[in-house]
């Protein structure tokens, strides 16, 4: 779009203004008409707001006038877009709250430990002295005994190389402590930096504790605040979540300062350590360290958290949104190969979720999964669907692939209900697999990826249970193997857990119960003999062998029957996100590669007729910067400007000389006027602009004073 005419006041002034308000939002514009610039699009905005009022659960498009079809379609589009957006927010907030719950649940043990430690430390401090409010406010420290100048400090080992995952943990910890009656402040590594100094971080501390921060942020402000009756009986906990990133000097200074006051103002530290326990020793001087009373605590391992998360959000259909096999494999690889943080995994999942609701027209139906009376919900929604969407629903690939039955609302509602039921069984069976796999150190994410594979279902050959396993069943087979070698006691426990997971699948529960009873009988026999941790020989322990095999066979049977990937079910497109390529491109922007590709293969984007003739040659008709970039590929670290210019000049002028030679045989080059060679100044200007553009993209670095004829190339290879 070469300048949207009249759309926005894009004058030259706005280009050199560091920043400006392009326009005020709908609400602000309508309520303060004086300050709002008149916008051509404001009318449209108001209409959208009106439409939002229609976003009731039961829209009735039939009532609308039919004279303006286009407008109605537009309205429909906006209405359904809004519905999808609402659905996204509901679904994601459900997922997010599940995530929070799971993570908090895992960390709860630690939180309790910390709280207990805080309480113990507080009573220890108070047992030394209990200064009165007036004493607290006195401008000199109360006691000078070294023992009484130690700040109780809990070092929490996070065991995460990447700190980002622990942000939520420490946030939850802070909330937990606060809700249990501690005064709480958090200091980040940026606040504890050399640049800010101790003053700034103390100010931040005050800002979090005091409602009104005085201009002079000093310890007396804190003391007088703490001496107030309502604050006096609780300890102050300062959480520093990322110790390694803090400046040792600033932290040391803070420690020294607060330690003088610890009896009067009981401040305790909770510090997160990502590496090893000697991190504080590396960071702080021995003098500072002496002022700390350390206590070591440890967080749960990341893989535990990952397994729990996968179980809660991907295996159990907590919000009605699920992902396809391709997406699952991508996410798994993203997790293991990209950075291995749960945060990035969750943000990738959120992006997938938003993409799903953004792209899939019927995705708002996912909300039905969260409703009490979901069938009614779907019925209502289906009846309200405009013709176009109905057609779309019946044309979903998963439906046309299945039997061609009558396309009605019931069909879709039934399909979705069926899908939910099958999904429920699927997740129960998957959890059984995982329970067994736990004994063989199988991660849930791995089995999950296999379990969502649609090929698993199509591949299975009921007559040949042990064949066709291939690579698509690697982890499932591993689980089967694990079961075959499980000791009886474990097997018994496993069956116990299974019967919980399989609750509701009566047939199988009965079989499990049957097995359980045999286990008990064999167990009583076996209990007198030595335990058989492994099936070492085939000749002895026949019953165990048979039992293990029986359990494995049962699981295998159940797996083949119920582990039906969601992608094999009709209407799965509504709830299942499948488009891995849009997720990938949105998640991992790769400017280094893509910008170079843009330039080297500019004709692919521009789709012009002139530059495509023989794909790889550098033609004069190409974008100038593209020509330059192509030429630059031939140089090493440095490019000689003179040579580069000559080559550029040669390419630009080659077209003119060609035209001169045969002016009539190249009708395709109509655009380049048959003038004599471009003027020197023009070519130099074009050269300059191309170099500047390459510099903006960061592919070039300007010449140094010492080597004015050479520019430096930055990026190599694609």
């Amino acid at each position, binding site marked *: 779009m070469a300048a949207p005419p009249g759309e926005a006041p894009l004058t030259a002034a706005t280009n050199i203004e560091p920043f400006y308000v392009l326009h005020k939002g709908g609400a602000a514009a309508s309520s303060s008409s004086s300050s709002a610039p008149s916008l051509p699009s404001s009318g449209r905005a108001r209409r959208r707001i009106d439409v939002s009022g229609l976003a009731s659960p039961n829209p009735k498009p039939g009532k609308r006038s039919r004279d303006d079809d286009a407008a109605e379609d537009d309205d429909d589009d906006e209405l359904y877009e809004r519905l999808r957006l609402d659905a996204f927010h509901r679904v994601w907030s459900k997922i997010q709250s599940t995530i929070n719950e799971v993570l908090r649940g895992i960390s709860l043990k630690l939180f309790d430990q910390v709280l207990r430690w805080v309480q113990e430390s507080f009573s220890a401090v108070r047992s030394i002295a209990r200064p009165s409010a007036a004493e607290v406010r006195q401008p000199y420290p109360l006691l000078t005994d070294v023992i009484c100048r130690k700040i109780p400090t809990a070092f929490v080992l996070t065991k995460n190389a990447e700190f980002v995952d622990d942000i939520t943990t420490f946030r939850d910890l802070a909330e937990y402590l606060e809700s249990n009656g501690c005064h709480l402040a958090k200091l980040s590594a940026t606040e504890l930096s050399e640049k800010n100094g101790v003053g700034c971080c103390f100010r931040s501390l005050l800002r979090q504790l005091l409602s009104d921060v005085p201009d002079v942020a000093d310890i007396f402000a804190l003391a007088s605040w703490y001496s107030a009756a309502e604050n006096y009986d609780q300890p102050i906990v300062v959480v520093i979540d990322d110790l390694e990133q803090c400046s040792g000097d600033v932290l040391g200074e803070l420690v020294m300062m607060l330690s003088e006051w610890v009896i009067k103002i009981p401040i305790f530290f909770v510090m997160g350590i990502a590496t090893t326990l000697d991190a504080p020793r590396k960071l702080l001087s021995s003098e500072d360290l002496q002022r700390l009373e350390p206590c070591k605590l440890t967080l749960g391992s990341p893989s535990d958290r990952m397994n729990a998360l996968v179980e809660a959000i991907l295996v159990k259909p907590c919000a009605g949104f699920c992902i396809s096999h391709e997406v699952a494999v991508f996410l798994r690889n993203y997790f293991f190969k990209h950075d291995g943080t749960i945060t990035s995994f969750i943000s990738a999942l959120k992006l997938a979720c938003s993409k799903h609701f953004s792209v899939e027209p019927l995705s708002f139906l996912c909300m039905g999964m969260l409703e009490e009376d979901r069938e009614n919900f779907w019925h209502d929604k289906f009846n309200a669907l405009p013709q176009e969407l109905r057609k779309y629903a019946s044309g979903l690939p998963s439906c046309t692939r299945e039997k061609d039955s009558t396309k009605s609302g019931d069909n879709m509602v039934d399909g979705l209900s069926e899908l939910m039921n099958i999904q429920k069984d699927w997740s129960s069976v998957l959890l059984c697999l995982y329970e067994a796999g736990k004994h063989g150190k199988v991660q849930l994410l791995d089995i999950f990826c296999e379990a969502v594979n649609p090929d698993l279902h199509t591949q299975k050959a009921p007559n040949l249970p042990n064949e066709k396993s291939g690579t698509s069943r690697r982890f499932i087979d591993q689980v089967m193997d694990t079961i075959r070698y499980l000791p009886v006691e474990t097997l018994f426990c496993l069956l116990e857990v299974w019967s919980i997971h399989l609750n509701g699948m009566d047939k199988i529960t009965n079989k499990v119960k049957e097995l359980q009873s045999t286990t008990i009988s064999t167990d009583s026999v076996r209990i007198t003999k030595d335990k058989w941790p492994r099936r070492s020989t085939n000749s002895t322990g026949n019953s165990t062998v048979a039992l293990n095999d029986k359990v494995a066979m049962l699981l295998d049977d159940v797996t083949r029957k119920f582990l039906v990937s969601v992608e094999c079910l009709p209407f799965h497109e509504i709830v299942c996100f499948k488009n891995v390529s849009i997720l990938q491109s949105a998640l991992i922007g790769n400017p280094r590669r893509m910008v170079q590709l843009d330039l080297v293969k500019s004709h692919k984007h521009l789709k012009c007729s002139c530059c495509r003739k023989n794909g790889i040659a550098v033609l004069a008709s190409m974008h100038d910067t593209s020509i330059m970039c192509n030429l630059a590929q031939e140089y090493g670290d*440095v490019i000689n400007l003179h040579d580069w210019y000559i*080559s550029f*000049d*040669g390419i630009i002028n080659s077209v003119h000389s060609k035209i001169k030679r045969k002016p009539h045989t190249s009708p395709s080059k109509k655009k380049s006027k048959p003038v004599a060679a471009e003027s020197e100044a023009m070519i130099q200007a074009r050269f300059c602009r191309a170099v500047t553009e390459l510099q903006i993209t960061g592919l070039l670095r300007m010449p140094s004073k010492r080597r004015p004829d050479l520019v430096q190339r930055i990026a190599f290879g694609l």
Partner: protein
Amino acid sequence: MALRGGHAAAAAGVSSGSEDDDEEAGFSRSYFLAKEKEPSSGKKRARAAGKLSDLNLVDEQVLRASLAEIPPKHEREVEALTRSYKEQYRNWLFELRCGFGLLMYGFGSKKMLLEDFASTTLSDFTVIVVNGYLPSINLKQVIVTIAEIFWEQTKLKRKRQTATRSQLQPFASQSIDDIISFLNNQTSDNGDDNVCLLIHNIDGPALRDAESQQYLAQVSCCPQVHVVASVDHVNAPLLWDKKMVHTQFKWSWYHVPTFAPYKVEGVFYPLILASGGHAQTMKTALVVLQSLTPNAQSVFRVLAEYQLAHEKEEGMHFSSLYTKCRERFLVSSQVTLNSHLTEFKDHDLVKIRKHSDGQDCLHIPLVSDALEKLLQELT
């Protein structure tokens, strides 16, 4: 694949690239790196020929005039390409509302594209455009503006209920952290109170420091603030750590090459053919010299003539310069000469080097031909 040096490049360049595949980029690099170290005679000739000064460079003003008149290439295709992104506007808006930040990258200026998106699609938002390509950005002012917009909105709402309460302290006099904590407390159930921060070149020169990016990240995760930004530098992702990417900016990347010229973004970059070579240095030297007294100019001339006569030497001794200048009645004492020299040094006209005999000597950091030209111009 041979090194395209000198004039052979013109013909070779046309048919070049046929074997220049992606994989070969690495190979060619090491090949040429090796080539560079090789002191072959042919190479030397190419080197000798390959200087910017050999080109018939036009005057900077002519260059700038031509720059403004460069005929656009592929105008229609560029327009069609940019138009093709219009279809995605609704999806972009959707994602923005889902809480993601939009990050646009790809070759070509995205200024028009983003502003068109903002003015056509983001009409419910208050849009603040930040021209990150400018070197003169004051981030605090931007944040203050956002805070003021919110303040105005709350004031409007309060007006309906109670009398207007005056602001306690103007935002401009508060610290950025305080303003950000004010922004963090802004919550509204009304989706129309949102502010969209449209940042052209969030990787621009003035925003490239860690502190600015930290502030931007903090602002971007404030409840009512949305961010749409563009990056042009290939290394832009290095600006952010994981915390910023995943929990604050929450980028959703979009590859949107436009191939539109970087008109405004490129203004602040020097023109390579105008300032890169010695031409510019010679010119600046001339400007400086012309502003000095005739005596000072003559002192410089003495030094320059000596340097031209003794090209191989490291420079001229201070004592011999003093003697020469005294002979010509240019200076009367060492003090006056020193004051001239200080002036030269301040403007980088003269450098002090260690002579091989151990003494300090004076040297003009210009190549001989530039120096000759300078002396001609000076008369």
